């Protein structure tokens, strides 16, 4: 079972699927669809299998498979999952089949599907690769299919958006590539002597001078900050989201952005703990600014999709905040939130897509009173929206709360501000909901079709995950936490960072006595 190269297959199956789809003749659209479906579903199945076979309460990388790839450069095909990546892998595995089966690109199915599958392979790869070079390969290759998906199946301004997305991200990767190489070259001096790009070897053995480590850290961090995106590098996101086809947006919000947050954890904090600790204030501040900035900008959008896009900026601000709070609770929350955001924002984009399908507009001002016309549709939207607002009992809350409460101990003032983002979230989403769904529908919106069965079945998984993860997150947490703890100890060993523990309550002998005497010194 361990020998079975499940992770390798996770990458290869979709890739192979993409190749096959590309080779099938255009004249057999059905065959194309079937192949794509099989490939993605198979991948999803394997991802779920990984989820269930994954040993919880185990901090190490599991299902590891390692083969030499480019010997002279010390590069190997090194894959593995741990708690931090597990659920992103599962999310990827689940999201893609839904998108591939559920969303119709309307033209050029063949090319669309093969790009999609290639994208899936890339995303999968970047979540499970444990080799800097390998990671970079996947991280970068993802741009190509995404570029073509936006450029080929997007809306009016798609070329601009796609190009912006491609170049913006590439600038980041430019820094990261230099960073990766420098890391490997500088780590060479350590034990072993030969160059290696192996994440674990470098992280465990290499020691960088503080200044060097910080430079390297920033080389990586820039790339991830663009991908996340972190204020002020976020402006590619609204364009990309708005112009991308629905499927693209779902994937983009669902998993692509997570490559950034995941990267920050795995290749920023884990690789350069000292620098990460040193850079905390900067990143916390940017994260908080991002939360408020994204929220305010979202409030003022007139395009529903753009609004959701900006909400992503805000949500990811939370994730970054948790990441750099560097406490178990906060980081676990961040990982959790990465998944949650993928689910709920992905679902939001899905529904915005459905609205566009029906009304051929995303202009909020053109929509009105949809709840009267399509109550069920509205209800579904409401649930997803509430999870995005972060109402307890739904998944959105759990992550957000863990991030905030976890960060409070190490970043009190940042949290005080960030928590107000919760208010803004309500503002922009409820306002949008009111404008779109409430009121009397006008003639264009009277005939707004109700949720179809197909769409409902597409949404069902999302909503059920939303509720389940909100009510019973324990299974997720118990798998995530050990790896996070390991990461924290790793940081503490390699920097002067000490993750604070809350002072556990002291029980006085008698409540009243405690009350009275402390009340007195209260008076004093």
């Amino acid at each position, binding site marked *: 079972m361990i020998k079975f190269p499940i992770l390798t297959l996770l990458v290869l199956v979709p890739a192979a699927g993409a190749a096959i789809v590309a080779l099938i003749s255009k004249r057999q659209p059905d065959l194309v669809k079937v192949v794509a479906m099989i490939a993605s579903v198979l991948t999803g199945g394997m991802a779920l299998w990984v989820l269930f076979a994954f040993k919880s309460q185990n901090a190490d990388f599991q299902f590891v498979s390692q083969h030499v790839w480019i*010997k002279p450069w010390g590069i190997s095909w090194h894959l593995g999952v741990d708690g931090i990546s597990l659920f992103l892998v599962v999310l990827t595995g689940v999201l893609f089949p839904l998108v591939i089966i559920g969303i119709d690109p309307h033209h050029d199915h063949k090319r669309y599907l093969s790009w999609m599958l290639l994208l899936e392979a890339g995303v999968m790869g970047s979540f499970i690769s444990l080799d800097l070079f390998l990671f970079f*390969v996947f991280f970068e290759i993802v741009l190509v299919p995404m570029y073509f998906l936006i450029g080929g199946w997007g809306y009016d301004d798609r070329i601009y958006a796609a190009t912006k997305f491609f170049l913006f991200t590439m600038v980041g990767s430019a820094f990261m590539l230099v960073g990766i190489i420098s890391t490997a070259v500088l780590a060479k001096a350590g034990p072993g002597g030969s160059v290696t790009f192996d994440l674990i070897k470098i992280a465990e053995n290499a020691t960088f001078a503080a200044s060097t480590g910080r430079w390297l850290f920033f080389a990586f961090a820039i790339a991830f900050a663009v991908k996340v995106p972190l204020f002020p590098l976020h402006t590619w996101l609204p364009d990309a989201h708005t112009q991308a086809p629905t499927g693209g947006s779902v994937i983009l919000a669902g998993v692509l952005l997570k490559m950034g947050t995941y990267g920050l954890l795995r290749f920023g904090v884990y690789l350069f703990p000292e620098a990460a600790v040193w850079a905390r204030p900067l990143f916390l501040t940017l994260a908080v600014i991002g939360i408020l900035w994204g929220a305010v900008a979202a409030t003022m959008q007139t395009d529903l999709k753009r609004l959701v896009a900006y909400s992503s900026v805000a949500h990811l601000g939370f994730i970054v905040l948790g990441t750099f709070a560097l406490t178990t609770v906060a980081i676990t929350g961040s990982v959790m939130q990465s998944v949650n955001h993928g689910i709920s924002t992905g679902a939001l984009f899905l529904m915005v897509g459905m609205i566009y399908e029906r009304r051929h507009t995303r202009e909020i001002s053109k929509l009105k009173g949809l709840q009267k016309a399509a109550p069920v549709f509205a209800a579904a939207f409401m649930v997803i929206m509430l999870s995005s607002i972060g109402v307890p009992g739904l998944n959105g809350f759990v992550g957000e709360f863990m991030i905030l409460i976890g960060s409070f101990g190490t970043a009190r003032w940042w949290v005080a501000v960030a928590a107000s983002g919760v208010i803004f979230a309500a503002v922009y989403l409820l306002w949008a909901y009111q404008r779109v769904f409430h009121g009397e529908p006008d003639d264009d919106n009277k005939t707004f079709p109700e949720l179809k069965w197909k769409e409902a079945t597409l949404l069902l998984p999302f909503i059920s995950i939303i509720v389940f993860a909100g009510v019973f997150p324990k299974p997720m947490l118990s798998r995530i936490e050990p790896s996070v703890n390991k990461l924290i100890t790793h940081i503490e060993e390699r920097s002067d960072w000490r993750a604070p523990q809350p002072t556990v309550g002291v029980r006085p002998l008698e409540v009243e006595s405690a009350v009275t005497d402390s009340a007195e010194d209260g008076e004093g």
Partner: protein
Amino acid sequence: MGALFAATLQGPKIDWFALSPLLLLLGGAMLLLVGGALTPPWPKHGYALFTSAIAIAAGVCGVLLWYRIDDKGPVRLVGNALSLDKVGLWLTITMCVGVFLAALVSDDYLRREDLDGPELYSLSLLAALGGIVMSSANDLIVLFLGLEILSISLYVMAASHRKRIESQEAGLKYFVLGGFSSAFFLYGVALVYGGAGSTNFDQIVAAFDATVQLDRQNDALVLAGVALLLVGLAFKVAAVPFHFWSPDVYEGSPTPVTAFMASVGKTAAFGAMLRVLLLALPHWRDDYRPALWVIAVLTLVGGSVMAVVQTNVKRMLAFSSISHAGFILVGVEAAAHGTGATLSTTGVSSVLLYLLIYSVLVIGTFGVVSAVGRTGDANTGLAGFRGLGKNQPALALGMTVLLLAQAGVPLTSGFIAKFGVITAAVDVHSYAIALIAMVSAVIAAFLYLRIMVSMWVSEPEAGDDTREPVRVPALLGVAISLSVAFTLVIGFLPGRLIDIAP
């Protein structure tokens, strides 16, 4: 007297096998010329296939020599005029590959343009010969002659399209500027000779070993020489600010010739640069390294920035090849950090890797352009590529792969090449230039995206369907698919190639 003469004149002993690539190319060229002149026009594909056969043969000899070096080690040939080492051989093989692919690309083009005949092929063989001489020369004069052989053949090839005045304009420009710059190079040779008393690399190094240390300041003359040599070489590799000729010439020349220049021409020039700088002038490293640094940066940025505003694909690719030259210069700069007269540094091997990969890449790309250009290279504008994704999906896909490779996207050879160069630069701690290189690569990526967009995304416009359809004839198809295959294979499994790179 006669006796004395006979007694004392013994020419250097010649190792014919070591010269076999040169001899093959020369012989092939002669056969083409004489045969072509004496016999009626050869059957379709005849000239091209013959040329490529010759190229392959030369390449094979190169490989055999490679193995010979493995057990015998490098040697000097023809009285220290040439040196047979792995660097030279690598470049030799690279150029043979270049000639081979270029011949395949040329075949249909020439027939289409009604220029078919043995001359161009023979010139390409001779040019390659010149290039090989350059990149394995061990004597400045020999190197200069090689350079002239290469350049003059290229002038002629550039001007060879009788129907297009642009082609002749390109030829003229290339000729005038080429002559101008090789005069500088030659003057440089003279001045270095003035300092060293010889033009032979080994003797130059020896001479400076003796003198440099004691009276450094007296060698202003040699320094001037170094500067002028650098000018000549920078011109050949089209480095900013000596690049002005290349966009015009690339655009004007017949597309297969452009491909040939971009591959064989650049390879030879960089080979020469490596030899001159590292083997002849190792003492002046600290003097020319900063200059190289500046030139490299200018070339990187200039090339990619100027490409942004172009609309003619050939011209775009010209500028992109300038910025590629910049990348290679980064490798050269890294190589210039070593010590002693040696070519065995990561810098050199990264350059060699880049040259091989880029040669294949660029010929494939221009191959596509020559197909899309249609008769008379009339449609080399971006508009010419519109709708290619619909009408010729396979071709468009191949082009996409090649362009992505040029942009340095992973899993393509282009990425491996860039990776190697950056590694070399980082190895010697020139981080700044590495960063600049990567960022300028992003700028350059923009133009590849533009081409891809017009192939896949742009809406068809009125009159598109009335245009002459894009044909992909057999040999051209072979050439393109070969280079695409190479691009991908190296992209996925570069290990072996990196291993053997000297």
